[in-house]
Every structure is written in C-alpha cells, then in structure tokens.
C-alpha cells in the first residue's frame, strides 16, 4: 500500500467537534470496559490484577461511575448537537437509517457471493457505518439506564423487586459485552483492518480522507461533493 502514490486531494470527513467527541467516547468506553469487565469476570487472575491496579473494588466502582457520568454527559450533548446544530442536523440526516440501507446490505451480500453484478453505491455513510452508529447508540442508552438503576440502588430497592435488579445487572453486563463485541469485530474491521484503510483510517485524528478513497468506498458522497464543487 505504501508505494502507491497518494492523491494529494483530501476532504474533511470529521469536523473538530466530532473528533473531540470521538476521542472522549473512546476514552470513556475503554475505562468503562476495563473496570466493568474486571467485575463481570472477577474470578480470574487478570481481573484480580486489574481490580488491584484500580485500587480495589471500591475505587473500581468510583472510576467506573465517573466514566459513566462522563459518557452519559456525552450522550446528552451528542443528542442535543445532532438535533439542534446545523452540522448535527446535516449529519443526522446522513446517518438516519432508511429502507435503502437494508437494500444496500442485501445487495452487497449478493454481490459478495457473486449473485449480483452491482455493488451498492454508498453515500456519506454506508450500511456499515450506520449499523454501527445506531447499534452503539442503542447500547450506550440501554447500559446507561440499567447502570443508573444499579447505581441508585437505595432508590431502586424501594420500587423494584430483587428479581428486576438481578435482570438489570445481567442486561447491564451482557449489553456491555455486546458493545465490546461490536467494537472489536465491526469497528475494528471497518476503520482498521479493512484493506482500503489498513492499518488505520486517519480521519479520527486529521479529520480528512483522500478524495480517491471516498470515490472508491463512498461514490455517491464523492459525486455529491464534486457537484458542490468541494473537490
């Protein structure tokens, strides 16, 4: 890949605000995963080491909840930003799930298996990006709600039977696992291991991508930008 001459033309794909949000999200999710899974899988040596590193089970909890508050604040901020700001509204329109995304998905699968000759022409976000965005958002929302119930245990205990709290705990843990699996298999693939970006799509740092990459992977977006005269 290295010897291939890179097109000097680049386009912005992530604005500064989104890059900051992305980095904060990454940090808080990592902290939550490390502190959370150590508790979920507490009976092995690695978890024991991690919990000791975090200063025991008490501080583990404090770190976990601090990161959680931070993440929830980001979720709220993000929701407002997507609903109220000009850039956010535009992005929301782009990332909104439509019938076409499912059609694209099936078309892509058919093409991949050689059952169709056309490959979908993705816009700014293809089904991969959209599925990930909505999957992660739903996950974070569910984890936040269950997390709050567990955190406010004195309050929850007054209104909820023990069995509901047991279920909440299970959902919280497994939902975390689910989010982690999505990150590991989906996100890692599309922004790191995918041959077109390997070893990493730098947009999360520079904010920009090659116009050529856009033309190959998101042709509809490329043409739209060309039409607008950006490229």
């Amino acid at each position: 890949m290295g010897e291939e001459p890179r097109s000097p033309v680049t386009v912005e794909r992530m604005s500064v605000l989104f890059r900051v949000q992305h980095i904060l999200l990454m940090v808080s999710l990592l902290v939550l995963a490390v502190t959370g899974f150590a508790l979920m899988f507490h009976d092995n040596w690695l978890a024991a080491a991690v919990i000791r590193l975090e200063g025991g089970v008490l501080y583990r909890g404090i770190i976990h909840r601090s990161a959680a508050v931070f993440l929830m604040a980001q979720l709220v901020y993000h929701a407002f930003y997507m609903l109220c700001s000009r850039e956010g509204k535009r992005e929301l329109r782009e990332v909104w799930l439509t019938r076409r995304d499912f059609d694209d998905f099936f078309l892509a699968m058919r093409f991949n298996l050689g059952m169709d000759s056309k490959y979908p022409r993705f816009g700014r976000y293809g089904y991969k990006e959209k599925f990930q965005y909505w999957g992660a958002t739903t996950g974070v929302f569910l984890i936040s709600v269950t997390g709050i119930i567990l955190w406010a245990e004195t309050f929850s205990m007054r209104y909820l039977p023990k069995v509901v709290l047991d279920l909440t705990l299970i959902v919280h843990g497994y939902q975390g696992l689910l989010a982690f699996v999505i990150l590991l298999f989906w996100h890692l693939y599309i922004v790191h291991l995918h041959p077109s970006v390997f070893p990493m799509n730098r947009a999360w740092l520079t904010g920009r991508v090659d116009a050529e990459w856009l033309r190959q992977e998101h042709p509809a977006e490329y043409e739209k930008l060309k039409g607008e005269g950006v490229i």
Partner: protein
Amino acid sequence: MKPLRSFVMAGLLAAAVGGMATGGNAGPTVGDCQECHGDKTIEMTMPDGTVRSLFVDGKAYRSSTHGKAACTACHVDAEAPHGKLSPVSCGRCHTEAAKSYAQSTHGIARAKGNRDVPGCGDCHGKHDIRKVQDPMARTFRLNIVGVCLECHEDRVIEERYDLPDEKMMAAYRDSVHGMASRKSGLLGSAVCTDCHGNHLILPGDQPRSATHRQHIPSLCGKCHSGILEKYERSVHGKGMRAGIAESPVCTDCHGEHTITKISDPASSVYVKNVPRTCSACHDKEAISSRYALPKKRFSSYMDSFHGIALEYGMTKAANCASCHAFHDILPASDPASPVNKANLPRTCGKCHPNAGENFAKGMIHVEVSPEKAMGVFAVRVFYTIFIGTLVTLFVLHVAMDLLGRRRRGKAKAGKTEG
C-alpha cells in the same frame, strides 16, 4: 473425749520425733536422707548404662507442698542406707486422681510398662511438687502448656505414637487462648487441661473423651455460656443434639488449636473467610442432597456483588453470617430466622434502609437454573445466543466483504482495460 485423744496423739508424736532425733528405729529423717542425697555429685549407673543423678534439692523439697513430711511418707521402704526402693505410689493418698489416671490414655499405656507416657511426677514434679494454685507449680494454669508440650512438641514422640505434629501444638501458642495466657497472663483463658481434661485425658475420637465431638459445645460453653445458649437454639445445635453427625460444633467453624480472634485475617470466621468456612459443608453435594438444602451456595454468593466486594477486600459487604446469623442460625422456613421472607426487609434494611417488602420478592443468591430463576436464566441465554450469533455473522460478513472486494477490484481492472 476428743481433746483427750488429741493430747495423747500429740504426746506420741512428740515421742516419735524425739525417738527419731536420737537415732531410734522410726526411719530416717529428711536430714538423714539429705546427708547422702544432698550431695550434688551423687549418682548411679543404671543397668542400661545411663547415669542418673540421685541428688535431691533439699531447699526445693522443703518449700514444696509435701515439704513438711518425711521422705518416708512417699518412699515407704526407705532406710539409711538403702538399696533399690519400690516405686512411689501417689495413689496411696490421692486415690481419686489415681483412679482417673488409670483410665486415661496415659495411664493405660503406663500400666503396660510404657515409660514414654507421663506418670504423676512428669507433670506435677517430684520433690519440688507444688499446689496448682501456686504460680511456681508446674501445673499452675499459666505453666501447663509448657509441661504438656515437653512431650507433645517432641517429634520423636509424635512420630512414635502417630500424634498430631508439632505445628498443630505450636498453633495453640498463637491462638486467641494461647496469646491471652502467654502474653496477658489471663487466668480465664483456656489451657490444655481445660479442654482435654487432666488426669482422665483421652483421645478425641473416644466417646468418653472431653474433646469428643458430642461434648464440644458444652465444653466451650463452660466459659462461653451465652454463646452455647444461642447455639443450642440453632439448627446446627438441634441437629447436633439429635445425633446428626454432619451438624457442625464450635470447632468445625472456629478451629481448635488454631482458634484466633474473629478480627484476625487468619481466623476461619474472619469476615472474608466466612463464605469458605460455611461452604465447607454447604457447597457439598452430598450434604445438600441428604438434608434437602439449596445448592450452589458458594458460587451463587461469590458471583453476587456482596461476594465480589468481599473477595476484593470490602469487608463491610455482607457475608453469610450478616444475613443468616451465626450461633443462632435457623433455616429460612423458621419465622425467627432473619432470612425468613417476613424478616427480609428488616435484614436487608440493616445496610439498605430502603429495601422494603417489594424488594424482598426476589430470590437471593439462587443458582441460575430454569426452575430457580427463570427470568435471569432466560435473559442470560438470550444474550449468550445473541452475542454468539452476532460474532458469527460479523466473521461471515468480514469474509464475504473481503471476497466481494476482490470481485470489485477485478471488475474495475476489467473496466479500465476495456
């Protein structure tokens, strides 16, 4: 009559003493004996070649409890000079003690001619014998441990008779009882003889032994009587009285020689160690099945937040005893049990003030199985399948995507050529 008799007795005694002093035939005095036995170098070679000192410390003898008596009170056949004397029989005066001793494990072995086991003198001392109340007595409370350990910490003896090893004996010194008597000189603290008995000492597996399982609660209760009272009310105490062998007695939870304060992290009933101690029985398949007790007590607790918190050193987290109580533990079906449904709000409320009746509706640390916890079981199965499927699909998708990319590459290459 009486004064007359004592007058006559006193007269006779005076005559006897006078006779002895003038070297009559009433036997040797202590002074006579000391003429030879007061010599530190006096010794005798035994038939087996060992040399034995025949010195008797006259000063120690005079300050002993028998110090006023003549040597012949014990050495009945002693004359001056004399050959081999017959053995001293303490039982001539101390009949009760001799009778008990004869039935003890020491006494039985000694009757068979075993000289490793202690006779009277080995514990009480010989010429320097003192009353047990005398702090200088070998058998004074604070000195007893040392006396017993003279043999019971001797590896040769332990191996010869298959006795518990010296570590178990040494453990007593660091136990709460050992520390109290050794460090603080606390007279109320248990020493060897308080539990094992003195003259009538027997191995713990013999029903007559003071330390036999069935006697343990009342044995500990001699000092810890308030606790015994609670224990007797508990399911364990009742089980024990009903002859259920698996029902725990004090030592099963607290240990015996190793017993330490509950605040000591080494104690088997230290907060952090309680779950493991209870699980020694309650996680045993055989015991749960035989007495129809709930299963998976240990793992279901250790996977709960209480268990994890305790494991990682948050000692204020609830352990078994926090909810179930301990000495007066009762089955959950008993209305007096703190884990009876009706009492749960109060029990949980000790730490979680808001845990009301609503909260108590769920089951606490049950094994996750369809019969016991359907909801939790179902959600867990759902997530496991869901995540498993998703991972499979992800992998499939990646494979297909890569496959498709190759096709796209080829198609594009074809296009540029054409």
